[in-house]
């Protein structure tokens, strides 16, 4: 030991929270959804998640080491979270090379281009996912039906997601009839996860458990998920009340598609969401609104991914103009 004293500015103690711990917390929160997806989609889910995580980590390492030449930080686990979330928004019958390509895009284009952890303006996993979706719409829009454990990779037979079914038939059939179609799963199935869809979006219950865990551990605050879900309920409810034969009910919008996955895990990504709680609420309302506009009026059945990316781009402006409540700013001393 050197007998010289250390000198540094205050504070001289530091809290226990670290970046790695936070990322670990997110992974734990994702575990229930992972269990559900393995139950319904079999080991294909494990393979895809594994490939995505592995390639995200490897790409991050390689880019950091050989292109950016920056201090290495792969062990902060953020690339693992990106990998898992990327996998969670892909269908299980996707060719593995697309998973690898998606990881490259997510990490390379979505994250490292901007300087790595903390610098990316857009959610990397969603960048990867939307890139794949726009480049390979065929592969990204065929959804395996859930079967059960031990389902082989690529052997699932495909069906449409509930949102896909509804989009196909908007204007052709009244919603009540669409809902009664054979292909359409019931609400209990939707809640538990027995429906066609991407890996991580199917189990509403599991996702909600993850959310409670993250709220409990103070990894996220309620503002973003609640404002997204609230907005979707309000808009879907409004449309539904005005014209129930042409619009699905709010519960349907809540349980289907990537809404919960997006609201709980992707919109809450620290790096790409606003900093102040007021900002977070505006951001959440924006995502909810855009999601519903896209779901209802655009050519695509699902809009969460686009909505989050668009609101990501507005985040710097929100941060610039929506400031936290300052102490002693608007004084109200009653």
């Amino acid at each position, binding site marked *: 030991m050197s007998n010289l004293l250390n000198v540094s500015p205050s504070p001289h103690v530091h809290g226990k929270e670290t970046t790695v711990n936070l990322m670990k917390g997110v992974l734990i929160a994702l575990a229930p959804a992972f269990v559900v997806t393995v139950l319904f989609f079999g080991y294909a889910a494990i393979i895809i998640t594994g490939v995505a995580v592995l390639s995200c980590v490897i790409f991050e390492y390689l880019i950091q080491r050989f292109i950016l030449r920056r201090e290495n930080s792969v062990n902060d686990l953020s690339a693992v979270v990106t990998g898992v979330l990327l996998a969670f928004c892909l269908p299980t019958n996707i060719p593995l090379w697309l998973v690898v390509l998606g990881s490259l895009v997510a990490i390379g284009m979505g994250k490292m281009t901007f300087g790595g952890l903390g610098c990316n303006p857009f959610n990397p996993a969603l960048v990867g996912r939307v890139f794949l979706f726009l480049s390979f719409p065929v592969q990204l829009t065929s959804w395996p039906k859930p079967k059960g454990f031990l389902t082989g990779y690529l052997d699932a037979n495909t069906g449409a997601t509930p949102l896909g079914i509804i989009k196909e038939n908007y204007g052709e059939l009244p919603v009540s009839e669409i809902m009664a179609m054979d292909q359409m799963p019931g609400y209990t199935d939707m809640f538990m996860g027995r429906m066609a869809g991407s890996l991580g979006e199917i189990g509403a219950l599991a996702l909600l458990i993850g959310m409670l865990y993250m709220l409990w551990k103070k990894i996220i605050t309620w503002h973003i998920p609640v404002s997204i879900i609230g907005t979707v309920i309000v808009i879907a409810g409004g449309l539904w009340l005005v014209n129930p034969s042409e619009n699905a009910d709010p519960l349907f919008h809540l349980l289907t598609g990537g809404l919960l996955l997006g609201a709980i895990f992707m919109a809450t990504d620290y790096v790409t969401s606003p900093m102040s709680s007021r900002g977070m609420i505006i951001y959440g309302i924006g995502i909810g609104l855009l999601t519903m506009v896209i779901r209802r009026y*655009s050519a695509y059945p699902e809009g969460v991914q686009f909505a989050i990316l668009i609101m990501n*781009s507005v985040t*710097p402006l929100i941060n*610039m103009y929506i400031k936290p409540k300052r102490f002693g700013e608007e004084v109200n001393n009653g």
Partner: protein
Amino acid sequence: MEYILIIIAAVFVNNIVLSQFLGICPFIGVSAKVETSVGMTGAVTFVMTIATVVTYLIQHYILNPFDIGYMQTISFILVIASLVQLVEIMLKKVSPPLYQALGIFLPLITTNCAVLGAAMLAVQFEYNLIQSIVFAIANSIGFGIALIIFAGLREHFDLLEVPAAMKGVPISFVAAGLLAMAFMGFAGIA
């Protein structure tokens, strides 16, 4: 409803910058600060709206009656260029700070293809005068939205450790690409 559709289509679905590729140079050049982009948006809205009105009149009262449609480009651009010159002269007097900030980009509004593009598209879509005006304003809003979002992003990048080779324009393009990707979500709305 018709006007709402025109607006939504021009602002989101066929955003003039992100999907029509018009006005890219000022988009890249002026989007460094939010304040200047707001000023630029104002200037573009002014020029674009007046230009669309004047070109509408030229198209319908000169070019069409005399059947000299091939003169569209040259007569439109003459009008636009003069307008921009006008704005420049006025701005220099009225708001010197904004004039300083927009600097070399004022002449760029002339060459802002967005202005000419919007005027020509309005003719191509056979809009009437009111529709043309709505269309011009919607396009300026679309331009402004893209510009201001980008200014926000770029001010944000200024506070981060962006890789040296990506600094400035390249990173803006990649971000624009990713935003354009997100805007594809609006496909099919109108």
